[in-house]
């Protein structure tokens, strides 16, 4: 890099994505706290380790094949004009490619890979929360790899890339991943909670719903606030910070969304906060001020507006966020009551239903906007073009897209996977272990100084301490 301006652009972009990764790490801190807070103390350490171990398994599998999938599957393959696996870029991202490591000729692959990887963790973590207190870590880690390194990155290739077939043919638009992260993970979580069944005692003999109190509401609430914090990095990572949206002759530099269509970091800051606020305001009212649901509704608010938060007016974002939060709250309780589904943290509602809603709404509110520049060799868009010949965002394209995310790539494959894991006997922990608690009989207590009995160490301390005191007494 010998040109200073070009160098600064590259080095700024490298640092920009690196920072998003650091901030996004807080999402996982938040999920870990949240799940541990919602769980009972007899399961706390296993809940924690189940969630955090997705980090290494998704990371290495995403290195081995996930990143390659993103570039290889943009045409389906064979959905857009019969085009197969796209090797133009994908050949650079095999695990043995020289670009998949420190290389003086490339400064973006590592940070861009990591930004997408953190989305993978998020997708897997969403499923983790729904199935706490009864799932084997073995099964969950397999599910985490399938969702984090295969299914979500296929949907990103299809609908979260300027050249993806869903964008090119259907005008699909989902700027901050209402569908491509949240709806798919919610759909997957729904499938698993159906197959694995509720926790023992969750539903009474007459179908009555029993509340299983969180062991620490404070911890769960801080977890949700940390997820909000990490979401800032998530939003920034969905943008390209500096891109020429003009021509070579008349350049015009702007931030863009993932589809290389213009937006501004300032604008999405408005909308992030307004959709969060819309969700919290609505959630506070419908939940009558419960901290858990008020904070979850804030998340549902962001997720509901995320598909179009690159372009919405802030008040539109607030209203969409509020409606999405009410929908998530109502649907969670309806589904729980009607179908006896035990989603321990409301993940299916907050991510799945709100994400689905968000994608559908964006199709209406952004109807006619350009989705992306047309790809050479692509078939004509199915649902309309803009006057410039770009595929146009439209309600039908986004509705079909939401179904693809939630049902086709989320629910259906995970229903099959969960059935296979169940048949293999590795989906659910033994009932006796579930009754006693996963930590009981396997690990030390999570709160030894609040226990009803002494720990082994305290027994030793007591015995030796008393003997010592006894000796002192003798001396005096």
């Amino acid at each position, binding site marked *: 890099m010998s040109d200073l301006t070009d160098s600064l652009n590259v080095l700024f972009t490298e640092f920009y994505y690196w920072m998003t990764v650091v901030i996004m790490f807080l999402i996982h801190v938040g999920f870990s706290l949240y799940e541990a807070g919602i769980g009972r103390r007899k399961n706390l350490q296993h809940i924690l380790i189940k969630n955090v171990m997705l980090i290494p398994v998704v990371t290495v599998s995403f290195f081995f094949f996930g990143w390659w999938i993103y570039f290889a599957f943009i045409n389906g393959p064979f959905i857009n004009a019969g085009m197969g696996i796209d090797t133009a870029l994908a050949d650079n991202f095999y695990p043995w490619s020289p670009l998949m490591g420190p290389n003086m000729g490339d400064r973006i692959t590592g940070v861009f890979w990591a930004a997408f990887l953190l989305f993978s963790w998020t997708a897997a973590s969403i499923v983790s929360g729904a199935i706490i207190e009864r799932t084997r870590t*073995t099964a969950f880690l397999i599910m985490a790899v399938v969702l984090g390194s295969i299914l979500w990155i296929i949907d990103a290739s299809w609908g979260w890339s300027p050249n993806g077939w869903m964008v090119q043919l259907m005008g699909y638009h989902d700027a901050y991943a209402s569908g491509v992260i949240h709806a798919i993970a919610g759909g997957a979580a729904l499938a698993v909670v159906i197959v694995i069944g509720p926790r023992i005692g969750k539903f009474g003999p007459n179908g009555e719903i029993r509340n299983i109190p969180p062991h620490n509401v404070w911890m769960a609430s801080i977890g949700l606030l940390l997820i909000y914090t990490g979401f800032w990095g998530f939003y920034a990572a969905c943008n390209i910070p500096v891109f020429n949206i003009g021509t070579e002759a008349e350049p015009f530099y702007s931030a863009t969304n993932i589809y290389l269509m213009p937006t501004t970091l300032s604008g999405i800051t408005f909308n992030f906060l307004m959709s969060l606020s819309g969700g919290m305001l609505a959630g506070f009212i419908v939940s009558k001020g419960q901290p858990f649901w008020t904070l979850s509704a804030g998340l549902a608010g962001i997720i509901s507006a995320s598909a179009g938060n690159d372009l919405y007016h802030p008040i539109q974002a607030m209203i969409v966020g509020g409606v999405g939060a009410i929908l998530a709250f109502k649907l969670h309780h309806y589904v729980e009551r009607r179908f006896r589904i035990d989603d321990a943290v409301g993940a299916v509602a907050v991510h799945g239903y709100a994400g689905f809603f968000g994608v559908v709404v964006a199709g209406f509110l952004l109807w006619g906007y350009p989705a992306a520049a047309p790809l050479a060799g692509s078939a004509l868009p199915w649902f309309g073009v803009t006057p410039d010949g770009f595929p146009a965002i439209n309600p039908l394209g986004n509705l079909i897209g939401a179904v693809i995310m939630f049902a086709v790539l989320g629910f259906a494959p995970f229903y099959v996977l969960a059935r296979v894991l169940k048949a293999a006997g*590795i989906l659910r922990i033994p009932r006796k272990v579930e009754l006693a608690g996963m930590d009981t009989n396997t690990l030390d207590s999570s709160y030894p100084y609040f226990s009803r009995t002494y720990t082994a160490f305290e027994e030793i301390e007591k015995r030796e301490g008393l003997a010592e005191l006894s000796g002192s007494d003798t001396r005096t």
Partner: protein
Amino acid sequence: MPTGLESFSNPADIGPLYPFPGTEGPLAIIGIALWILFHVLQTREENRKWNEAEAAFDAKILLPGSDEPPHTMGG
């Protein structure tokens, strides 16, 4: 024995910075094998752990350090 670069004097001509360039293929195979091995070992360990926990439940004993009675819901 040099394992890779011996000079940074012409940075524009430098590509990979890591040692043993050209071994990426075998490294990928080793990495994938280690990843699969982890899942095998983790599955085995978890099965062993739950078998022991079930036995402890049947014997109505608490292992050292545990504070939850085994036959209650806890929480």
